[in-house]
């Protein structure tokens, strides 16, 4: 039976090419693997190999022909005894066409665009009257991890200095004693490697908690956080994923210079497949860490070194968790909405106090999780106050504040009485000098000034 030889696609982008040279002539016998022609693609000149065996019955496209379309019949192979003349001139093989483009893929603009009734999701995290205890963020984090490790033997903690040293920032203090070296594991200083090993362990069904001594060092490992952990569920069609937590201090500490002071909130919040948490209070650290460890997806848990020693009231409950995607309204107000998260809340709350002294009533919202984001709570508030200021320590370009502004513009444009202002870190690497460092970070005064600007005071 005769076999049609088609102009091959020899690169991902090739649509047509030049049949530069035939290396066989009519009547030649070819077998699988023989080079039969040279074809110039948009990238290079390539050799074209025969896949089937046969005799070159007819060459239909002469060498030197330019613009030969992919899948055009260029020659016919026949078997012994057959003649190419017996074969009707072939039509271009239609069945070889790739399936027609389906209707334009649902371009799905940000889901936030759907015009829906906006109802704030903010609600109390625990019933009124719950007994409370004062805890530091550090203690709340340790308790959350220890409680979950008692609950699920597949949970383990791995990182630099987490075991014998008791944690570079003492977050894992006492955990080696309780859980032993099998579950509290010191690693060498090798972020790329241990982030990959932990991700593989998660593929294998365990639930690793990976501590980065700081998220600045996670840049060594970011390929595994994004390409390996975040994308595998999708790439595997839902067969396997990476149930794990990457945690550690993020953002500026104090006087540690440019390489140890970056806030990665906006970076990770951009990645589908990740969940991103950046709490402010000790109660939120605890409730959200427990939720993060139970989540079947990779969670980026962004902590802050300056906050570790700060004390807050934490509900004294057996099992206290907070769902992702639920903002918290720290302070109700009527004149302006301040949206923040993480350490940015420090400035937001201070600013609200100062504004109150001047008779401006600010509503302060802590997003708490950046993926998913509780848009509705923000929108409901903005529809009430008609003004918004965002506050974060990270770089200003492509910031979380930029994104929140865009969503407000799309969904609550008619409610705005002033443009949204984003208060962020300055667009400079972090300087060391004390005065310059202070200037590089967002300040309470800047938040106050922004709130006055949007309220025209």
């Amino acid at each position, binding site marked *: 039976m005769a076999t049609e030889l*088609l102009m*091959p*696609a*020899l*690169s*991902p982008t090739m649509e047509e090419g030049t049949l530069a040279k035939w290396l066989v002539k009519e009547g030649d016998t070819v077998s699988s*693997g023989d080079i039969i022609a040279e074809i110039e*693609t948009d*990238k*290079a000149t*390539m*050799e074209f190999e025969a*896949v089937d065996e046969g005799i070159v019955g007819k060459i239909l496209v002469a060498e030197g022909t330019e613009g030969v379309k*992919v*899948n055009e019949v260029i020659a016919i192979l026949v078997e012994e005894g057959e003649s190419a003349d017996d074969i009707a001139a072939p039509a271009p093989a239609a*069945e*070889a*066409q*790739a*399936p027609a483009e*389906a209707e334009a*893929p*649902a371009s*799905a603009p940000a889901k936030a665009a759907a015009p829906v009734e906006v109802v704030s999701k903010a609600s109390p995290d625990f019933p009124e009257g719950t007994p409370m205890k004062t805890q530091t963020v550090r203690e709340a984090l340790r308790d959350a991890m220890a409680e979950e490790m008692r609950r699920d033997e597949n949970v*383990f903690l791995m990182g630099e200095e987490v075991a014998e040293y008791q944690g570079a920032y003492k977050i894992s203090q006492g955990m080696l004693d309780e859980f032993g070296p*099998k579950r509290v594991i010191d690693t*060498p200083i*090798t972020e*790329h*490697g*241990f*982030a*990959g*090993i932990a*991700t*593989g*362990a998660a*593929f*294998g*069904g*365990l639930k690793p908690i990976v501590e980065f001594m700081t998220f600045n060092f996670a840049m060594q490992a970011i*390929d*595994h956080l994004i*390409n*390996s952990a975040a994308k*595998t*569920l*999708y*790439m*595997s*069609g*839902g*067969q*396997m*994923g990476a149930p794990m937590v990457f945690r550690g201090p993020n953002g500026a500490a104090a006087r540690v210079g440019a390489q140890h002071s970056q806030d990665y909130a906006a970076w990770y919040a951009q990645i*589908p*497949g990740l*969940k991103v948490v950046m709490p402010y209070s000790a109660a939120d650290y605890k409730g959200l860490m427990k939720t993060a460890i139970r989540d*079947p*997806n990779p969670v980026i848990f962004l902590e802050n070194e300056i906050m570790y020693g700060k004390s807050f009231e934490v509900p004294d409950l057996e099992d206290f968790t907070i769902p992702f995607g639920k903002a918290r309204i720290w302070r109700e107000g009527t004149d302006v909405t301040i949206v923040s998260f993480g350490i940015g809340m420090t400035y937001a709350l201070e600013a609200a106090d100062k504004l109150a002294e001047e008779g401006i009533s600010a509503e302060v919202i802590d997003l708490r999780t950046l993926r998913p984001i509780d848009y509705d709570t923000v929108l409901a508030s903005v529809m009430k106050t008609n003004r918004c200021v965002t506050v974060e320590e990270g770089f200003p370009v492509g910031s979380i504040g930029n994104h929140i502004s865009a969503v407000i513009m799309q969904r609550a444009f008619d409610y705005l009485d002033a443009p949204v202002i984003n208060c962020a870190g300055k667009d400079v690497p972090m300087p060391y000098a004390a005065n310059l460092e202070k200037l590089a970070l967002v300040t309470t005064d800047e938040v106050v000034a922004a709130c006055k600007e949007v309220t025209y005071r």
Partner: protein
Amino acid sequence: MAPRKTASKPASQANVSKDELLAYYKDMLLIRRFEEKAGQLYGMGLIGGFCHLYIGQEAVVVGLEAATKEGDKRITSYRDHGHMLACGMDPNGVMAELTGREGGYSKGKGGSMHMFSKEKHFYGGHGIVGAQVPLGAGLAFSDKYKGNDNVTFTYFGDGAANQGQVYETYNMAELWDLPVIFVIENNQYAMGTSVARSTKSPSLWERGAAYGIEGEEVDGMDVLAVKEAGERAVAHCRAGKGPYILEVKTYRYRGHSMSDPAKYRTREEVQKMREERDPIEAVRSILLTGNHATEDDLKAIDKDIKAVVNASAEFAKESPEPALEELWTDIYADEIPQHNA
């Protein structure tokens, strides 16, 4: 600990049964015919993007799969079609993934480089050179943590062997005695750069000595030699002695991907390898000279395999493209999918 150096010795045929030989022949031939078909479908525009064929390297995965037991895991790079077929994944599902169809292993969302099978313990299909190496060690970590005796085959190429994360992984794998077999598939070219042009330490397996990891070099064109080396590696890992390195010397006949102009090696070099060292021809010759099979027997096998491959191509053409809603699924899990294996 001094690493053991095992000379690449010809495998003894004495320990191999006729049935085993026939099985290796079939498995290798399936990979070759499948890959030829994939190349053809690529040429027809039915497969898009990157497509890295395994032709020439068949003895590596077939030999090593012969050393595995149920529960063992495998993970590799983007040149992954052979690994999937060798561990028993369905050719229809693999081919349909290549064409980006609903019937593919990842519902068409992964493509040639990203396929997985929970059922066959195949953990991908990874597109970032070297990234699968710590991931594989992590899979081994999970088995050691659970206390079973499974091992993980972590495949990577001579190109990945120069990535830093490989050595970070060697260090931790030996430190923690992880049951992982690092299989360096040295096909002599990292894309277009030969080993000689990328390193002055040409013996890649010996680098494990710096971390105390034992290993050996293996003739990757001899499926029996690969199987025997695989058995030594598996025994080492199952005994709790930590990782093991196999540097399997092999050769890819085709380009790095489909758009490889092949200017970095001569046509004669490829031809010589095909004529003198072809792994499938080698087994064929043992089968015939040992009177284990007749020409007719082998013709019948060829025919059966061609039918399987043609059926996979038909399936891959007929299977519909994924529904548009699939764009939005499998981004977040509600429960850990690998727990319901």
